[in-house]
C-alpha cells in the first residue's frame, strides 16, 4: 500500500523528466509519456480509492536535529482521496485532449513536462500530512502555473499574465509562510490533523488562531482567485485552454478551498468562518455579475470559476463542510468540461476567442454543444445535474445560518441564479442562432471524436451521473450528509427564477440581438457595462496602490537606507577585508623554510592555547 503512495508522488516528477527527454527525440513521444503516466496515476488513485478502509498516515521527517525536526509526511483520507481523483482523473482527460489541441505546437516536450510537474505538485499538496509538504506542493503548483500560463512566452500578453499570476499568488503565499511560522511557534507542531485536534480541544488561544486562520485564508484567496486577488485568474486565460481547464478551472484553484476544508475544525474553533463567508459572498457577486458582460469565451468561464469557488467558500463559511466540498467536486468536473468544450470551439474556430464572432456552431459540432449544454445545465443548477444539489444546499445553508442569513445569503442567492444567465448567454451566443462571422464559420470543421469529443462526453456523463449520488459524495468527503435545512419554496423559487433568466437570455441574445445592442448603447448601461467588463476595476486599484504607495514611498525609503547605510557598510567590509588579505598574504610565502618557521610558532600558539584552556 505504502509503496503505491510513494509511486504516486514520484511518478509525475519522473514522468515530467522523461517526457522532456524523450520529447527531444520525437515530440509525439512526449505526449505518449504524459498520457501513459497520467493514466497510471489515475489507476493508482482508483486502486487507493477501492481499497480505502481508513486514513493512510505516514509520518516522515525531512530533516531532524535533536528536538527540532521538519516533518514531511503523507496523509490520505477521504477528502484527500476525492481531490486526488479529481487531479489525476481530470489531469488524464486533459492530457488526452491536448493531443489534438497542442498538436501543432513546436514545444510539446516542454508543455507535457510542465503539466506532469503540475499534477505532481497537486498530488503532493492534497496528500500532505503537515504544513511543510503542503507548502511544498503549493509552491510547486505556483511555479507550474506560472510556467504554463506563460507557455507562449514569445508573445507579450501570456508572458505578462504569467508574471501577474506569479505575483498575485506569491502575495498570498507570504501569508501562508507567515502562518506556518506562527503556528510552529504557538503549537510546536505542523501536523494538520494535530492542529485540528488541538483546536477542537481548545488548547490554543482563540485570538491567535483567528490571526493564523486569516493569514491562511489570504493565501487561499490568492490561489483560488477570490476578491481582491482575482485579476490574475482572468489574465491567466492567455495560456493554452487545456491549461486553463486543468489549472484554472478544475484543480489548482481548488487548493485554496482544500486548505480551508482541511483545517475546518481549526477554522471553526478560531471563529474565522464568517470572514471566509463574507469574502466568498463579495467574490461570488463580483464574479457572477462580471461574467455577464464578457466578450471572450474563456473570460466568462474565468469569472464563473471565481464565482463558483466563492460559493464553495460560502458553503464552508456557513458551517457546512459537506455543502462546500460537494460543490467543489461538482464544480471541478463541470468546469473542466466547460473549459475543454470552450477549448474545442476555440481550436475549431482558428483560435478566435470572441463570442460575438461565433453563433450557430451547434450545427457543426453537435456533440460538443450537447456536452457543453450538460455542463451549462449543471452550472445553472438544474436538477438532476450535480450542480443543482450542491448549489441548493449552499444557498439553503447560508439562509439557515443566523450569521450569514442577511447580506451574505442575498449575495449568494444572486450569484447562484445569475450563473444561469451568463452560462446560457455563453451557450446561446456560441451554439444557437445565426453565425455572426461567416468567413470564420466556413473554416470550422467537426473535431476529432476520440481525442476531443470523447473526453467531453465522459465528463458530461459524469456530471449527470453524479447528480444521483450527491448524498454519497457528501458523506464520503465530509463524513456528514448534505444536511439541507428545509426552507419551503426555495426549491421552486430557485428553479423558476433560473428558468425565467434562461428565457430572457434566449430572447435577448438569440431572437432579438438588435435590441440588446441598442440597450447596451445607452449611457447608463454603458457605464455599468464598463464597470463589470473590467471586473470592478479591482486590478486598476491594486496597480495604483502598489505603484503609488508601495513603490512610491516605502520602496523609496528602503532604497535610501540600502544605498546610504547598507552599501556603505558592505563597501567598508570590502576595504577591511582587503587590508586583512594583504597582511595575511605576507605570512604565506612559497618558501619551505618560512613554512616550517610558521609551524614552530603555531605549535607554540597551540601549547599556549592548551595552557590557557587548562587555566580556565
Amino acid at each position, binding site marked *: 500500500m505504502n509503496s503505491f503512495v510513494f509511486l504516486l508522488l514520484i511518478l509525475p516528477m519522473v514522468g515530467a523528466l522523461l517526457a522532456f527527454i524523450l520529447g527531444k527525440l520525437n515530440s509525439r513521444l512526449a505526449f505518449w509519456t504524459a498520457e501513459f503516466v497520467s493514466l497510471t496515476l489515475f489507476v493508482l488513485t482508483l486502486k487507493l480509492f477501492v481499497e480505502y478502509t481508513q486514513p493512510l498516515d505516514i509520518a516522515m521527517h525531512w*530533516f531532524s*536535529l535533536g528536538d527540532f525536526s521538519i516533518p514531511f509526511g503523507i496523509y490520505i483520507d477521504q477528502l484527500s482521496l476525492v481531490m486526488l481523483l479529481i487531479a489525476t482523473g481530470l489531469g488524464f482527460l486533459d492530457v488526452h485532449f491536448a493531443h489534438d489541441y497542442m498538436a501543432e505546437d513546436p514545444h510539446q516536450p516542454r508543455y507535457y513536462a510542465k503539466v506532469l510537474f503540475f499534477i505532481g505538485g497537486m498530488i503532493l499538496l492534497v496528500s500532505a500530512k503537515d504544513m511543510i509538504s503542503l507548502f511544498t506542493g503549493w509552491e510547486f503548483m505556483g511555479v507550474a502555473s506560472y510556467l504554463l500560463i506563460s507557455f507562449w512566452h514569445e508573445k507579450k500578453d501570456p508572458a505578462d499574465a504569467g508574471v501577474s499570476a506569479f505575483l498575485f499568488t506569491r502575495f498570498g503565499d507570504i501569508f501562508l509562510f507567515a502562518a506556518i511560522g506562527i503556528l510552529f511557534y504557538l503549537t510546536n507542531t505542523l501536523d494538520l490533523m494535530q492542529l485540528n485536534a488541538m483546536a477542537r480541544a481548545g488548547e490554543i488561544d482563540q485570538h491567535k488562531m483567528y490571526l493564523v486562520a486569516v493569514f491562511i485564508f489570504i493565501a487561499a484567496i490568492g490561489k483560488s482567485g477570490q476578491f481582491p486577488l482575482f485579476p490574475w485568474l482572468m489574465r491567466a486565460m492567455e495560456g493554452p485552454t487545456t491549461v486553463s481547464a486543468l489549472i484554472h478551472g478544475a484543480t489548482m484553484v481548488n487548493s485554496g478551498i482544500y486548505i480551508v476544508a482541511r483545517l475546518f475544525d481549526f477554522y471553526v474553533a478560531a471563529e474565522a468562518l464568517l470572514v471566509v463567508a463574507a469574502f466568498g459572498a463579495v467574490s461570488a457577486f463580483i464574479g457572477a455579475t462580471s461574467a455577464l458582460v464578457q466578450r471572450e469565451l474563456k473570460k466568462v468561464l474565468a469569472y464563473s470559476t471565481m464565482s463558483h469557488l466563492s460559493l464553495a467558500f460560502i458553503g464552508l463559511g456557513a458551517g457546512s463542510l459537506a455543502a462546500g466540498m460537494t460543490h467543489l467536486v461538482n464544480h471541478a468536473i463541470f468546469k473542466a468540461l466547460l473549459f475543454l468544450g470552450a477549448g474545442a470551439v476555440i481550436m475549431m474556430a482558428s483560435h478566435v476567442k470572441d463570442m460575438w464572432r461565433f453563433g450557430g456552431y451547434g450545427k457543426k459540432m453537435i456533440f460538443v454543444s450537447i456536452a457543453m449544454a450538460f455542463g451549462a445545465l449543471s452550472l445553472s443548477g438544474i436538477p438532476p445535474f450535480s450542480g443543482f444539489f450542491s448549489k441548493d444546499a449552499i444557498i439553503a445553508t447560508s439562509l439557515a445560518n443566523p450569521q450569514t442569513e442577511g447580506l451574505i445569503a442575498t449575495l449568494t442567492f444572486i450569484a447562484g441564479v445569475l450563473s444561469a444567465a451568463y452560462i446560457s448567454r455563453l451557450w446561446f451566443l456560441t451554439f444557437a442562432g445565426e453565425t455572426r462571422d461567416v468567413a470564420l464559420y466556413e473554416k470550422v470543421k467537426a473535431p476529432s471524436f476520440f481525442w476531443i469529443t470523447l473526453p467531453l462526453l465522459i465528463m458530461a456523463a459524469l456530471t449527470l451521473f453524479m447528480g444521483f449520488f450527491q448524498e454519497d459524495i457528501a458523506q464520503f468527503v465530509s463524513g456528514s450528509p448534505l444536511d439541507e435545512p428545509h426552507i419551503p419554496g426555495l426549491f421552486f423559487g430557485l428553479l423558476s427564477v433560473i428558468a425565467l433568466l434562461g428565457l430572457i437570455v434566449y430572447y435577448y441574445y438569440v431572437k432579438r440581438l438588435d435590441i440588446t445592442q441598442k440597450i447596451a448603447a445607452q449611457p447608463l448601461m454603458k457605464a455599468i457595462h464598463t464597470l463589470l467588463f473590467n471586473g470592478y476595476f479591482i486590478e486598476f486599484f491594486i496597480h495604483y496602490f502598489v505603484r503609488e504607495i508601495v513603490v512610491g514611498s516605502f520602496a523609496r525609503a528602503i532604497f535610501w537606507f540600502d544605498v546610504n547605510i547598507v552599501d556603505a557598510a558592505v563597501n567598508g567590509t570590502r576595504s577591511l*577585508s582587503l587590508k*586583512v*588579505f594583504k597582511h*595575511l598574504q605576507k605570512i604565506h610565502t612559497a618558501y619551505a623554510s618560512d613554512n616550517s618557521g610558521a*609551524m614552530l610558532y603555531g605549535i607554540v600558539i597551540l601549547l599556549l*592555547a*592548551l595552557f590557557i*584552556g587548562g587555566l580556565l
Partner: protein
Amino acid sequence: MITPFYILLGFGLLSIVLHRTALLKPFALTAFGIAGSVSFMTASADLKLFEIIVSSVLFAFILHEQEDITITQTLFLGASSMLLLESDSILSFVIAFESLSLISVILVSYVRTKDEVEGAVKMFIASALATGFLFLGLTFYLMGGGELQEALHPNATLFEMIGVFIMLLALFYKLTLVPFHGWAVDTYAKVSHTNAALLSGVAKTVAVVAVFKIFEPFLALHLSFAVPLFITVAVITMTFGNFLALFRKNIAEILAYSSVAHAGYMALAFVAVSSSYAQDGILYMAIAYIFMQSAAFLILDTLKKSYAIVSLDDLHGFAQQNPLLGALLSIQLFSLAGIPLLAGFLAKAVIFYAVVDSGLWWVALIALLNSALSVAYYAIIVKSIYFEDLKVKKLSLSNRTTAFTAQLILVAGTIFFGIFAGVIL
C-alpha cells in the same frame, strides 16, 4: 572475510596488466562498483554510507580520468581509504594512515611540469614531517603505557597525553589545519587538478572521518584538552583560509584556500565533541565536501584541458560558451558557499548546530561570519561565469561524455544530500 579493502587491492594489482588497453577503465569502474556493494553488505553501520559514497565518488573520478597510471593509483588510494575507515586500533590506524600518505605522494610524483614538481616536493616534505611527528607521538604514547593493538586509553597518563598531542599535530598536517597548511595550498593549486581532486576531495575527507572515529572517544573524555586546542585551530584555519581566498585570481588557488577553510569547519566537529550531534556533523560535512570539492576540481580540469582556462579572467562569459558545464560548476560552488537545498548548507547547519549544542555559541558565530565571508569569493567565480562578457571565443579541444557523466553523478550527490540528507542519515 572479503572487505572493500581486499577487493580494491586485488583489482589494483591486477589492473597493472591492463595498462594501455581499453579494458582498464571498465575494470576499475567494476572494482569500485563491487567495493561499493560489498561495503553495503559488510561495513559497520555508522560508516556504511560513507564508504559507499567514497566508492561512488572514486567511480566518478575514474570516469573522468584519462591517465592509465593514475587509474591504478586511484584503486590503491581507494584501498587504503577503506583500510583507514575500517581501522579500529592505534596500530591499524597508523599503518593505514601511512599507506594513504604514501599513495598520495606517489600520486603526485608523476610530474610533467615544473609547477607539479614544486607541489609534489612540498607535499613529500610535509608528509615526511608528518610521519616523523606521528611516530614521535606514538613513541611517547607507548612510553606512557599505551597499547598498540587497542583503542586509545581513556585514562591517560601524562606521557600518553603528550603522545596524543604530538600525534594530533601530525594529523593536522594531513588535515591541512593552520599552521600546518603551508604545503597544502601550493600542492593543491600546482599539481594537476585531477590529483588535487583526489587529495583535497577524497583523501583529506577520509582522513578526517577516520581521525574523528579513532580520537573522538578519547577527546570526549578530555574536554579541557580538546576544546581549547581545536577552537584555536578551527577558528584560525577558517578565518585564514577565507580571507586569503578572497582576492585571488587563480581559480585553483581559490579552491585550495577554500579547502583549507573547510578543514576549519571540519575541525569544529572536534570542538563540539561533547555534543551528540558531532558525529552527525562530521558525517554530513564529509559527505557534502567529498562531492562538491572533487566535482569542482574535476570541472576545473576540464576547463583547463578543453578551454585553457586558468584564472578568473579566462572564465569570463563561460556560460555563453558551455552553459551546462557553467551551471554544474555554479551548483558546486554554491554548495561550497552553503546555499540552502544543497549539501554544503546542510553540512554547515548541522555542524554549527552541534557547536551551539555543546555550549560554544560564540565559536559558531565566528564560523557563521566566516561562512558569510566565503560566499564572496565563490560568488565572484559565478559572477565571471554568468555576468561578464565573453571576450575571446575559447577553443574547445575535446568534449568527453564520460567526464560529463562523472559530473552528473557528483552533482546528483550534492543536490540529493542537500534535500534528502535528513531522510537517509
